[in-house]
C-alpha cells in the first residue's frame, strides 16, 4: 500500500508530516498525518464519496470542516465501541482508526437505495404522513415502517454495551468563555488577566478557531502563531483553565453550561476515561462560538466536491490538503476570496470566481451578477453551469466547487434558554436579539464577522465580565495588523434554482420540498420544520435554517425575519449516552441501601426485592423450592411456630420536645394525649385533603419523647411533611425531629413461639403477657446488646420487634435466630409478610391506598378521634364527597371456585354483564394464596363495599372473568385472640 496522498500539498499546513498514521475507511487502508481529521485525511487521499444521504441515498462528500458537517457522518469503531453518526470533520485521526460509511447497501459506490432518488416524486416532504396511510390493516407497522427504517435513517445504534468508562465533573468559575477563536481568545485573555477564575472551552484539539486558517497578522505574528501565544499567556494565569476537545453542547438555567470533553477519542489505547461530562456554573458567560458559512442553492449542490469556501480554505491552510486541482468559487461574500487565494497559494488552479454581487470588494471576480445554475457530474463534480443575470449561460470544467452563501452566527447556546434571534437585513442572517443576564455574545456568533471586530469585542467583553465579578484589569487590547471590514451579501443575484437544490443536506430537504410545504399551507416556521424535517437531527439549523427560511420568506413575499426561526435545542452536537451517564452505571446508578443484617440474608439464600433504594429479603427459597413454595412455607412457620423478619427498613423519626404529644395529635388522625410512657399505638396520617398518606406504630419512649415509625417507602416524605408543618404552620410548637431510620436494626419475631424464643435469649425483661402486653415496650439485653423490645404485630400473631443499635443488628439477629432453632425458627421475607398482613386485613400504604382513599374507606374509623379540635385532614373528612356512601371501601374477596388466584389491578363489575360499557365498581389491591384459608384471597376497593358483604362481583383482567364473594377484609382470627395471647 502506497503512503502517497495525492491531494496533500508539498508543504504547509499544521499537520505533523513526520508522523504518518494508518487508518481504514470502509475496509480500505489509507495514510494521514498527526493533526489530521478523518475528513482532511480522506480528502488528502482523494476520497470524495463518504456517505449516502438520508432519504434519496444520493452520493455525498465532505461539505465542511467542523461541527456543522451534514454529510460525512460515519460509524467509528466496531462492536460495543461503535459510535454511529460521528462527523468525519471532527474526528482526530489516530493510528489504526477504523470508520465505516453509513446508509449504503450493499456498498457506498453501488447503493441500491439510490433508487429512492428516481422515486423522489413519490417521497416528497411530509411523505411520512400521507403516502403510507391506507393499505391493508397493519401495513404500516408490518410493512412500510420496517422498510422505511431500513432504507432511510442514519447509522445503526450499537447493540453491545459500551466498554468505555466516562467521567463527570462539576466546576464553578467567574467567567466561562466558549470558543477559542479570535473573539474567545481576546475575551479569555482579558478576563483572566486580573486573576478571575476563567474557563476557556474549545471543541478542537488545537485552540485558535478561524485563526488557524487565517492569513492575517496580529501583533506582527501570523494568525496561527498569535493564537498559540495568546493561549500560552492565558494558561499562565493562575486561575485559568483551558479545555480543548471540549464541546459546550447546552446552556441551561442560571448560567449552567454542559460540556463534553473528549479525553481519549484520539487515543483509544489510553487507560483514561474516554470522555468527561462537565457541568459548569459560571458567574458570567462569554459566547464566542463563531459562525457557520451557508451553502448556496443550485442544482446538485450536494455533489461530492462541492464544499463550503471556508472549509476549502481550512483544508488548504490548516491541513495542507487541496479540495480539488481545478476549483470554481461561487460566492455572495468577500470571505470566499481569501479561500480562493489560499487554494491558489497551495497550488490549485482557480478556474473562475463567480460573485453574485455587483459590488464585491475584490477585483478578482471573473463573473459578477452571476451564479451557479447546477453542478455537472455523477458521483463527483466534473464541471459547473453558470448563469448570468443577463441570461447568459456557460459551462466551466472543474473538479471542485467552493461556495459561500453568507454566514449565519452560531446562536445555539444563546438560544437554548430564553435567547431570541432577529433577522439582520444588512448582514442577511439571524443575530441575537435580546441580552441575557450575565451572558454576552461576541464576534461571529453576534454577527460581528470581521477579525478586527472579533478581537475588539472579545477584549471589551472579557474585561467587563471580569470587572463585574470583582477582577478589574487593564490589559491593552489587541488588534489585527491590517484592519478588515465585512461586506454584506444580501444584494446578490439569486436565480431560481432547479428542483434538486438542497436546503438541508442531512435530511434531504430540497427547495421543492419547501415550495410544497408552502403550497400545502405549512408556512409557519415550526410547521415547515416538522413537515419537511429541515433543521432536525444533528443539523439543528446550522446549515439549513437560513436557506429554508429565506426560501419560505421569498414564497410568502416577506422578509426572513417575519417568518421567524425555530427553537434551537441542546445538544449543539450529539452527546453519547455514556458521557451523560458517566459513572452512574450498574451498581452506581442509584445508591443501594442495605440493612445491617443484609449479609446474613445473602448467606441464607434470600432473593431480594428493591423497595425504593432498599434491598429487602423477599423470600428464602430452599433447594428445589419455587417462590410460591418458599412463601407458603414461611407463612405456615409464622402461623404455627415462629418466624423472623428484618424490619430495619421502616422509617424511624425521633420526636422530642414538650409539645411532642400535641404535635402527634395534629399529624395523626387518632388521639395521643393519654399514651403512657412505654406504650405503643398505631397511627394513621392524612394529608389535609383527608386522604391517607402513611401509617405506622409510634412509641412513647419518655416523658417528652416518641419514636415514630413510617412505611419504608414514605420515610423521607413523612419527614418532609412533618418538618414543613413544624417550621411553617406551627412554629410555636416546641418539637424537634431526628431521622433515626438507619440507627436502629429491627428484628421482628412473630408466631405462637415468639415468647418462648425471646425467653431463651432476652435478659432483663419480663415477657409474661400481663406484665408485657400487646402494644408496649420494654428494654432488655440480647447477646450483651442493650435492645428495645416492642410488642407489636403486623402478622396477627404474637409478635415482638427487637430494635438494636445498627452496628449490633447482625449480632442480635444471629443470636435470636440461634435461640430460635429449637423452635424451628424460619426467616421470612417481604412476600410472606404481605400475605400474613393481608390475611388480617392490614393495609399497605401504596397498595391499598393511592392518594384517593380516606381512613373511613379503609374501615379505620376507630382510629379517627373526632373529638380533637383539629388534625391534618379532619376538615376534609366532613366534605360531602368524602362521606358519600358509594365511595370505594376496603373489602375482602374470595373466588367462588376457591381455587383461582386473583390478580392485583383486576377491575370489579357487577355480576350481570348484559350492558356495555360495564360499569367498573372497584379494583383488586392485593391478591395472594393464603395458607390460613388454604385458598386464594384478595383485598379490594369496592363501591359501597361494606354493604355488599355476601354479594357476588366479577373480577376481570386479561380477558378473564372470575366471580367472587365479597367478604370482610379480615380472613384470619377476626377476634384478634392470637395477637394478645
Amino acid at each position, binding site marked *: 500500500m502506497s503512503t502517497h496522498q495525492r491531494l496533500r500539498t508539498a508543504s504547509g499546513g499544521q499537520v505533523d508530516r513526520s508522523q504518518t498514521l494508518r487508518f481504514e475507511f470502509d475496509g480500505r487502508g489509507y495514510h494521514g498525518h498527526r493533526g489530521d481529521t478523518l475528513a482532511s485525511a480522506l480528502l488528502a487521499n482523494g476520497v470524495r464519496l463518504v456517505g449516502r444521504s438520508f432519504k434519496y441515498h444520493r452520493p455525498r462528500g465532505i461539505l465542511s470542516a467542523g461541527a456543522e458537517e451534514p454529510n460525512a457522518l460515519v460509524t467509528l469503531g466496531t462492536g460495543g465501541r461503535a459510535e454511529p453518526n460521528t462527523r468525519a470533520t471532527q474526528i482526530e485521526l489516530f493510528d489504526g482508526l477504523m470508520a465505516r460509511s453509513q446508509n449504503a447497501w450493499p456498498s457506498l459506490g453501488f447503493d441500491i437505495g439510490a433508487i429512492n432518488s428516481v422515486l423522489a416524486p413519490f417521497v416528497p416532504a411530509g411523505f411520512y404522513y400521507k403516502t403510507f396511510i391506507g393499505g391493508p390493516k397493519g401495513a404500516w407497522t408490518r410493512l412500510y415502517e420496517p422498510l422505511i427504517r431500513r432504507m432511510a435513517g442514519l447509522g445503526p445504534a450499537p447493540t453491545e454495551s459500551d466498554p468505555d468508562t466516562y467521567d463527570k465533573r462539576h466546576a464553578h468559575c467567574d467567567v466561562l468563555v466558549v470558543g477559542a477563536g479570535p473573539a474567545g481568545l481576546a475575551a479569555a485573555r482579558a478576563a483572566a488577566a486580573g486573576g478571575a477564575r476563567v474557563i476557556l472551552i474549545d471543541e478542537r484539539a488545537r485552540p485558535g478557531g478561524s485563526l488557524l486558517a487565517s492569513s492575517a497578522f496580529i501583533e506582527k505574528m501570523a494568525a496561527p502563531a498569535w493564537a498559540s501565544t495568546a493561549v500560552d499567556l492565558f494558561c499562565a494565569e493562575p486561575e485559568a483553565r483551558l479545555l480543548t476537545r471540549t464541546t459546550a453542547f447546552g446552556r441551561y*438555567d442560571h448560567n449552567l453550561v454542559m460540556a463534553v470533553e473528549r479525553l481519549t477519542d484520539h487515543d483509544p489505547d489510553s487507560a483514561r476515561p474516554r470522555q468527561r461530562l462537565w457541568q459548569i456554573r459560571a458567574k458570567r458567560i462569554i459566547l464566542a462560538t463563531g459562525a457557520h458559512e451557508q451553502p448556496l442553492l443550485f442544482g446538485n449542490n450536494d455533489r461530492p466536491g462541492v464544499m463550503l469556501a471556508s472549509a476549502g480554505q481550512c483544508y488548504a491552510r490548516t491541513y495542507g490538503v487541496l479540495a480539488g486541482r481545478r476549483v470554481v468559487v461561487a460566492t455572495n461574500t468577500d470571505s470566499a476570496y481569501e479561500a480562493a487565494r489560499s487554494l491558489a497559494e497551495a497550488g490549485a488552479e482557480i478556474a473562475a470566481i463567480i460573485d453574485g454581487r455587483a459590488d464585491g470588494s475584490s477585483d478578482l471576480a471573473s463573473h459578477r451578477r452571476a451564479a451557479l445554475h447546477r453542478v455537472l457530474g455523477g458521483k463527483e463534480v466534473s464541471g459547473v453551469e453558470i448563469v448570468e443575470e443577463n441570461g447568459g449561460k456557460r459551462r466551466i470544467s472543474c473538479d471542485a466547487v467552493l461556495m459561500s452563501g453568507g454566514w449565519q452566527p452560531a446562536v445555539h447556546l444563546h438560544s437554548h434558554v430564553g435567547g431570541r434571534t432577529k433577522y439582520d437585513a444588512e448582514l442577511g442572517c439571524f443575530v441575537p436579539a435580546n441580552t441575557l443576564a450575565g451572558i454576552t455574545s461576541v464576534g461571529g456568533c453576534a454577527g460581528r464577522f470581521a477579525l478586527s471586530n472579533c478581537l475588539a469585542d472579545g477584549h471589551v467583553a472579557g474585561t467587563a465580565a471580569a470587572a463585574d465579578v470583582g477582577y478589574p484589569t487593564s490589559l491593552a487590547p489587541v488588534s489585527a495588523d491590517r484592519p478588515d471590514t465585512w461586506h454584506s451579501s444580501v444584494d446578490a443575484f439569486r436565480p431560481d434554482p432547479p428542483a434538486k437544490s438542497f436546503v438541508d443536506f442531512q435530511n434531504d430537504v430540497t427547495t421543492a420540498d419547501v415550495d410544497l410545504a408552502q403550497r400545502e399551507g405549512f408556512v409557519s416556521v415550526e410547521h415547515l420544520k416538522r413537515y419537511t424535517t429541515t433543521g432536525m437531527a444533528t443539523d439543528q439549523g446550522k446549515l439549513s435554517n437560513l436557506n429554508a427560511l429565506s426560501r419560505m420568506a421569498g414564497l410568502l413575499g416577506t422578509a426572513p425575519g417575519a417568518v421567524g426561526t425555530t427553537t434551537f435545542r441542546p445538544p449543539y452536537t450529539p452527546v453519547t449516552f455514556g458521557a451523560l451517564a458517566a459513572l452512574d452505571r450498574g451498581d452506581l446508578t442509584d445508591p443501594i441501601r442495605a440493612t445491617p443484617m443484609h449479609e446474613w440474608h445473602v448467606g441464607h439464600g434470600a432473593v431480594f426485592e428493591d423497595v425504593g433504594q432498599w434491598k429487602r429479603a423477599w423470600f428464602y427459597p430452599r433447594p428445589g423450592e419455587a417462590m410460591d413454595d418458599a412463601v407458603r412455607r414461611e407463612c405456615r412457620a409464622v402461623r404455627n411456630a415462629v418466624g423472623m423478619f428484618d424490619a430495619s427498613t421502616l422509617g424511624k423519626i425521633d420526636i422530642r420536645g414538650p409539645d411532642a404529644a400535641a404535635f402527634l395529635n*395534629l399529624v395523626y388522625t387518632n388521639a395521643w394525649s393519654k399514651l403512657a410512657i412505654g406504650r405503643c399505638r398505631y397511627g394513621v396520617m392524612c394529608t389535609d385533603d383527608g386522604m391517607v398518606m402513611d401509617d405506622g406504630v409510634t412509641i412513647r419512649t419518655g416523658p417528652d419523647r416518641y419514636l415514630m415509625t413510617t412505611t419504608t417507602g414514605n420515610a423521607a416524605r413523612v419527614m418532609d411533611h412533618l418538618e414543613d408543618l413544624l417550621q411553617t*404552620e406551627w412554629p410555636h410548637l416546641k418539637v424537634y425531629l431526628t431521622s433515626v431510620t438507619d440507627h436502629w436494626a429491627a428484628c421482628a419475631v412473630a408466631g405462637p413461639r415468639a415468647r418462648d424464643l425471646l425467653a431463651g435469649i432476652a435478659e432483663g425483661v419480663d415477657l409474661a403477657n400481663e406484665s408485657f402486653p400487646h402494644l408496649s415496650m420494654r428494654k432488655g439485653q440480647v447477646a450483651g446488646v442493650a435492645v428495645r423490645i416492642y410488642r407489636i404485630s403486623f402478622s396477627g400473631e404474637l409478635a415482638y420487634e427487637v430494635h438494636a443499635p445498627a452496628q449490633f443488628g447482625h449480632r442480635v439477629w444471629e443470636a435470636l435466630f440461634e435461640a430460635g432453632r429449637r423452635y424451628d425458627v424460619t426467616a421470612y421475607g417481604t412476600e410472606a409478610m404481605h400475605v400474613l398482613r393481608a390475611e388480617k386485613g392490614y393495609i399497605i400504604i401504596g397498595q391499598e391506598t393511592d392518594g384517593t382513599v380516606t381512613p373511613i374507606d379503609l374501615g379505620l374509623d376507630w382510629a379517627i378521634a373526632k373529638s380533637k379540635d383539629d388534625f391534618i385532614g379532619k376538615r376534609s373528612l366532613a*366534605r*360531602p364527597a368524602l362521606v358519600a356512601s358509594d365511595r370505594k371501601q376496603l373489602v375482602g374477596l374470595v373466588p367462588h371456585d376457591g381455587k383461582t388466584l386473583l390478580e392485583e389491578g383486576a377491575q370489579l363489575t357487577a355480576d350481570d354483564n348484559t350492558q356495555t360499557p360495564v360499569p367498573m365498581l372497584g379494583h383488586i389491591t392485593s391478591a395472594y394464596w393464603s395458607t390460613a384459608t388454604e385458598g386464594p384471597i384478595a383485598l379490594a376497593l369496592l363501591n359501597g363495599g361494606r354493604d355488599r358483604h355476601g354479594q357476588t362481583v366479577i373480577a376481570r383482567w386479561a380477558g378473564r372473568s372470575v366471580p367472587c364473594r365479597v367478604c370482610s377484609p379480615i380472613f384470619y382470627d377476626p377476634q384478634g385472640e392470637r395477637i394478645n395471647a
Partner: protein
Amino acid sequence: MLLITCPWCGPRDEIEFHSGGEAGRVRPHVPDELDDTEWANFLFMRRNEKGLRRERWVHALGCRRWFAITRDTVTHDILPDDAPSLIASDMHVDGGAR
C-alpha cells in the same frame, strides 16, 4: 437546573431541594369554621401566576430548612433577597391549630 440560594447553606443546585409550591397559603386557624367551598378553595385553588411569584422550597438534601424565594415563572430568574427569607419570618402563621 436552577441555582437556589438556601439562606443557611448558600447557593446550591436545584436537585438538593424540594419545591413546596406557592408561598402565602396559610392554613386556617380553625378549619371547622370554614364552609365546604372556603375549605376547598384553601385546599385546591392556587394563584398560579405568570411572572414573579413567591414560592416555598425546602433544602431537603441539606439542612432541611424551609424558606421562601421570589422567582419569575417565565424566566426562572430568582430575585435576590436582602435578608434570609426564612419561612417563619416571611409567612409566619401563628398557629393554625392549638
